[in-house]
């Protein structure tokens, strides 16, 4: 369960203070798949990084599983991140010196010893993202789609409370993007994985239960699959 309360983030550029997030209130239920959309520069990535504890808010609260992220120090946030969160980046961010398996195992290694049980889980994950047989291949030798699969497996390896994804399909062609979104949906459905995904692509957003629209650092509109005008809205958007 994620709760965001009056979240503000300002950036100082020289003398100039720009408000990127101007007071966001948001609640995401366990098992929900949320897409965040909005124009470039509206603060989507900023919100996601705050949720991941990669950044600290200027004001406001972020609660994940009743823990206040904004009250933790840097080290606590890092440890929370590797235990409870998963992050998928637009440009994959794999470690080029490591193999597929090592990349996936990295958050577990960072957290301590790798148990047998966890190794088995890594294998299962490799299987479920469709990378069988590539365990020992160096990550930077894979195609973009394959790399993003590795990134997803890596993000899920710690059984995260929430999977955060910033434009995970942004660098992929349509067919690849569809496969990746298929994976998201699979984990969402099978494992009740909570997912928060930033995207520019309404097609991708269509996979989500709820779409949050950003504009100038505030939430402009929220549309849920349950809403009566959901289908109409999507159709409008695509047109």
């Amino acid at each position, binding site marked *: 369960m994620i709760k965001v309360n009056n979240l503000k983030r300002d950036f100082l550029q020289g003398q100039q203070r720009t408000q990127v997030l101007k007071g966001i209130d948001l609640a995401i239920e366990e098992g929900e798949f949320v897409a965040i959309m909005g124009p470039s520069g509206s603060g989507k990535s900023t919100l996601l990084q705050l949720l991941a504890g990669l950044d600290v808010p200027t004001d406001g609260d972020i609660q994940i599983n009743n823990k206040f992220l904004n009250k933790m120090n840097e080290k606590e946030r*890092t440890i929370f991140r590797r235990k409870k969160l998963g992050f998928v980046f637009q440009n994959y961010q794999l470690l080029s010196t490591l193999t597929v398996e090592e990349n996936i195992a990295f958050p577990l290694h*960072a957290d*301590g010893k790798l148990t047998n049980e966890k190794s088995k889980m890594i294998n299962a994950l490799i299987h479920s993202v469709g990378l069988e047989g590539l365990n020992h291949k160096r990550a930077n030798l894979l195609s973009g789609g394959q790399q993003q699969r590795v990134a997803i497996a890596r993000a899920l390896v710690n059984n995260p409370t929430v999977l955060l994804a910033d434009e995970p399909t942004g660098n992929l062609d349509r067919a690849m993007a569809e496969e990746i979104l298929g994976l998201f949906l699979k984990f969402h459905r099978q494992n009740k994985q909570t997912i928060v995904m930033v995207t520019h692509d309404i097609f991708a957003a269509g996979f989500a239960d709820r779409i949050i629209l950003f504009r100038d650092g505030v939430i402009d509109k929220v549309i849920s699959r349950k809403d009566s005008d959901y289908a109409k809205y999507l159709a409008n958007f695509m047109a």
Partner: protein
Amino acid sequence: MLSIWRISWRNITTNNKKRFFITLLAIILGTSFVTAMLVADKTTKDVFDYYEQMYVANADYWVLSDEHSYSEEMISSIQNDSAVTGTLLALDKQAFFELESDHSLNERSVRITGVNDQNSPLLKLPVIEGSLDNKGIVITEAVANLLGKKVGDTVRFTNMGEAKVSAIVEYTQLLASPSNWERAESTSFRILAPLDMLREWTGQYNEISYMRFQTKGDGEELFHSLQQSFLGSSVFIQPVVADDLQSNDIGGIYTFFYIIAGLSIFISGFIVFNMIYTSVIERKKEFAIMKSLGYTQSAVSKLVLIEMILLALIGTAIGVPLGIWFGDMFIQALLSVFEFDMVYTLNWELPTLVAIIIGFLYPIVFSLFPIYNAGKTSLLFTLKMANERDGSTRLHILRAVVGVGLLCFVFIDHPVTYAAVLASVILLFPLLLIGLSKIFTPILKSFFNYPGIMATKNLFQQINRNANTAAILAIGISVILLLGAVVESAPQGYEKEIRSTYGGDMRVTSELSWSAEDITKLLSYPAVTDVKPLAEAAPITWETVNEGKRQFSVISVSEDGPSLFADLQEKDLYKALTQKSTVLLGDRAFEEWGGNIGQSIRMNSPSGEQSFEVIGVVKTSHHSGYVAFMDATNLSNEFGWTNSFDLLLTVNSKAIDSTRDQLWSDFGNHLSKVQTVEDEVESTTSAISGMNELILVMLLIIIGLASIGTANTLLMNTYERKFEIGTMRALGFTKQQIRNMILAEGLLIGLSGVIGGIATGIVLIYVTSKSELMEGFISFQFPISNIILAMIAGVTLSLCAAWISSKTASKLDIQSSLKEG
């Protein structure tokens, strides 16, 4: 034009401040080291020249005899010769200080030189206090301090008389004296007195030991006519030659320190290379853009060249003055190690000029290849290349094969072996680094956990650069270990040489030649088992093949005489020497002479100018090899030196001290020196042992310099991996884990550098100990204390170096790293 300089300045200072400072530091250290050596070398040479010149003063010739003294009438014609502009008469006399404190005769022995004019231009005395009034004695400051005497105080001489101190002077060779009582046991004091006073004390009214004189022009004519007229007498004439090679071998020591200075230049040059090479690769994109904007290849190269020139200029501007200061400290250390009681003024002008040229040029020379490479940047350059792993597998195999091939030089006894071994170390280091990383993985894992494992993977990413960095550390350590082993085993080598060529246990020198009764008396000493005379003709002037004037002594040898040199064909040499006009040279004399065996050497003997065929070169401890040997019969008949003032005694080792005391009490009135093998060993080796500490300091400096290289490399690795480090942080590495990872990288580089260095050092020591060229001078050994110091310093300083990068890495901002990635 001004703008390109400004652009370059901005490039080196703003892009990467830490790297700029580290590289600059390396240049400064390298330059200052070389400057220090140049300044110290020149100053030391000047000091010795100065003292030598002071000793020679304005004298052109001197007339001496192969007896203790001769009648003044022999030279009265010279004093009246119109070609002679000045003369100085001197009489030497052995005496003893009469002291309140309790000291043996041996310690109190003093040679008094009586001169007819203390103010003579043929005698230069650097007065500190008092005046040269020809009424009292002149002593050096060291002697004044030891005796506790001031100007005006009275000094008494046993059974002779007493005199007031009229002047205290600085160190000068003529008055070279021990500065402590320990040294006084084996060396006499020397003081100056008015000739008349000494004659009165000794009753030798018409006698002199030698006369020096100055001539108008070169005086060649007078010299030859005097040489003729002295034939058949005990008196002979020699030109005065400034040559102190017999008394010191300080030049040899500088060879040693220049090796270390060269090493430091090499290391800092490598750091410069690494830095500029990486900077060029990082900026390939920028260069590609410049080229697309119309910059030519040479304009791009020029931009980088100017950056390098700026760095070299700053490095020289700081390094050279710093080096002059280091040089000053270095001379002080060196002179104190060798117990030279000398005053010096720093001669920095010429060395500074040379140092400025070297300091300016070497950073540029080392960066030429990267600069050329920068200009070659292709327009179609893609950023991806920078991330590719350097070196293909095939290249690695080639490197390994060539490396192993070069290592085979170990079995060849040739100086080139050293270069081959060092080159092979550089080539083989990637393999070593990979191997050691694998071996150390479990240890790193238990110390640093997963960051330790990441460290090994990271090292492989830039294996060539990291291996080169470690190799440089290894080479620094190995060379110093070798030099350390040389210094450490040198005393043993010298001791061996001294004991095998001293010719007895004790050498006894007298002012008068030894009579048969004296020898009988000596043989009656219960501890003395053998007495052998030794004739040493000195000073003998001679000519190098380039007609340079030199001076040494010629010592008599014979098959049944004492063994004064070491050679495998000793017997044959003795036999060959019995031929007329033949001579053997000690190794240093041979080197200075510059000729080949079979050629002739020209000498001014007591019987005039003569040529001798050099029939061999031998090792000897006498005057550290700056000496010649001649058959005893030839020395007296052909060469014209008939007397022997030295005896070599074989003495029961338990009775050395009592024998020495007895000698002084029995022969005190003409004995001038009693020296034992032990004294000679002690005085030769104590200075070298003192050098051990200098070596340790050098070891630390070299490891420190190499660690600057490690810091630089790790910093570059860190900046290059900025995005990966950001990713690791995003994936849950804490700052501490990032720091540990980089510390582990530093530790691996440091450890492999140290281990590789020690292994290489041992190989070099082994090669040297087996080398025929060194004639077994050094024995194979593990220089344990140096190895331990290298380990501690190498690992600690590498960790310090890594700490700098670990700080930088842990401070990297995750978000910006991610955004740009």
